[in-house]
């Protein structure tokens, strides 16, 4: 062995009993994991090119650190290919940024997942899918990169104690996608100041995607109105008025928007920002505001505080759909974070 691992070693008779033992020890997300043997984990550490004790992040409120060794173990268990490691490591670094505030979204009763958006050339190189079923099943990179992050949280991140999700959702197994970048719209990472040739990871504390169907309109403003209506849904966490929100525009919907003159993401963000809001009074009358004295009842509550707080992502396969992904809490507690992938 090239590395001296510090993690305790659990002996088992064979591979299959290792899978069962992992369930017994609470190491899994409910699905079988690949037993993380030292030989296998070493391959993942090699792919990262780091010593096992290198600290990639952590949750300071829980006095927990994420070492490269634990990240490699999680990725091996998740079924990643070793070459996914730079993406997994970048996601760990992004989540550990104080602005993301990992403790909150990984503990909250709101049960959010961590959406991982991968931009830049690495997405194609690794087969991270932006198209059909990108947030669903069937693609190894999409399924296992997010899963590695979740298994890290479950084990090294203390989720077995801290995760108090009321429901949780399927995205907590994995919620990883790439973006269609071959259009006139700027990719998310370019909007955030990176170059097109940079490969980046953005993490976002995310509710389950709400699919928006509109098969028939050819009018861009009408389509955006349907999307805005979902963004301002009364029971949405975003009606707290302080959250980011991701809006994923499907390619067929994007065509309608382009034909309608929305030739930049900024134009779409601006339009949605203006439309995705409600009268404070409507919310107050349903008893959803505890202290109306601090609010102007004739004023408006916005689904996002400003246009740039919409993470606009161009993804999806065939079909006239988009998706709205509500965020979590307020931006003083968790903001999306974009980091460059180091490799």
């Amino acid at each position, binding site marked *: 062995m090239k590395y001296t691992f510090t*993690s305790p070693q*659990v*002996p088992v008779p*064979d591979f299959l009993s290792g899978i069962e033992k992992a369930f017994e020890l609470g190491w899994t997300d409910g699905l079988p994991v690949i037993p993380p043997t030292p030989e296998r984990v070493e391959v993942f550490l090699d792919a990262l090119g780091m010593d096992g004790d290198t600290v990639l992040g952590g949750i*300071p409120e*829980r006095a927990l*650190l994420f070492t490269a060794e634990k990240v490699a173990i999680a990725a091996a268990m998740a079924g990643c290919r070793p070459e996914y490691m730079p993406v997994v490591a970048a996601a760990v670094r992004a989540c550990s940024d104080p602005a993301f505030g990992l403790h909150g979204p990984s503990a909250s009763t709101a049960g959010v997942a961590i959406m991982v958006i991968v931009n830049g050339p690495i997405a194609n190189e690794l087969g991270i899918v932006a198209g059909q079923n990108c947030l669903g099943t069937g693609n190894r990179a999409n399924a296992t990169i997010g899963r590695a992050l979740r298994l890290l949280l479950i*084990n090294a991140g203390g989720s077995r104690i801290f995760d108090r999700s009321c429901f949780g959702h399927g995205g907590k197994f994995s919620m990883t996608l790439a973006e269609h970048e071959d259009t006139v719209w700027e990719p998310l990472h370019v909007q955030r100041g990176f170059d097109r040739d940079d490969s980046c990871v953005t993490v976002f504390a995310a509710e389950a995607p709400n699919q928006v169907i509109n098969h028939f309109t050819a009018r861009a403003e009408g389509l955006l109105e349907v999307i805005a209506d979902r963004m301002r849904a009364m029971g949405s966490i975003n009606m707290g008025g302080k959250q980011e929100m991701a809006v994923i525009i499907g390619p067929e919907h994007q065509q309608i928007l382009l034909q309608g003159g929305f030739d930049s993401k900024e134009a779409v963000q601006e339009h949605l920002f203006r439309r995705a809001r409600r009268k404070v009074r409507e919310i107050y009358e349903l008893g959803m505001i505890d202290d109306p004295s601090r609010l102007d009842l004739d004023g408006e509550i916005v689904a996002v505080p400003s246009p740039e707080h919409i993470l606009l992502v161009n993804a999806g396969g065939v079909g006239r759909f988009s998706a709205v992904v509500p965020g979590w809490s307020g931006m003083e*507690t968790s903001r999306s974070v974009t980091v460059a992938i180091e490799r």
Partner: protein
Amino acid sequence: MAQGVADAGIVMLDPSGSPEAALARRAPRLDTLDGKTIGLLHNAKKNSDKVLDLVAAVLARQYRFSVVRMGKDSASRAADPEIIAGLKRECDAVITGVGD
């Protein structure tokens, strides 16, 4: 599977644990609350201060202690270092928790 392989077995690396957490120690427990100063640190959630006041009121039926009240800015963030330092300076023990 060949007999020898099964006999040899495999080992798995434990994915849990953290070197920093392993160093954490619990503070020594108090033997009584009588005559002590008890900090109440609310977590900024709605009514969390009231929950702690109720806890203190229940304890006050049995013990005589003084109370220092403090609050975090955000339920999802650790308390500011100044708050921690203040509690450490002024209190013998602290009661905190999630109220919502």
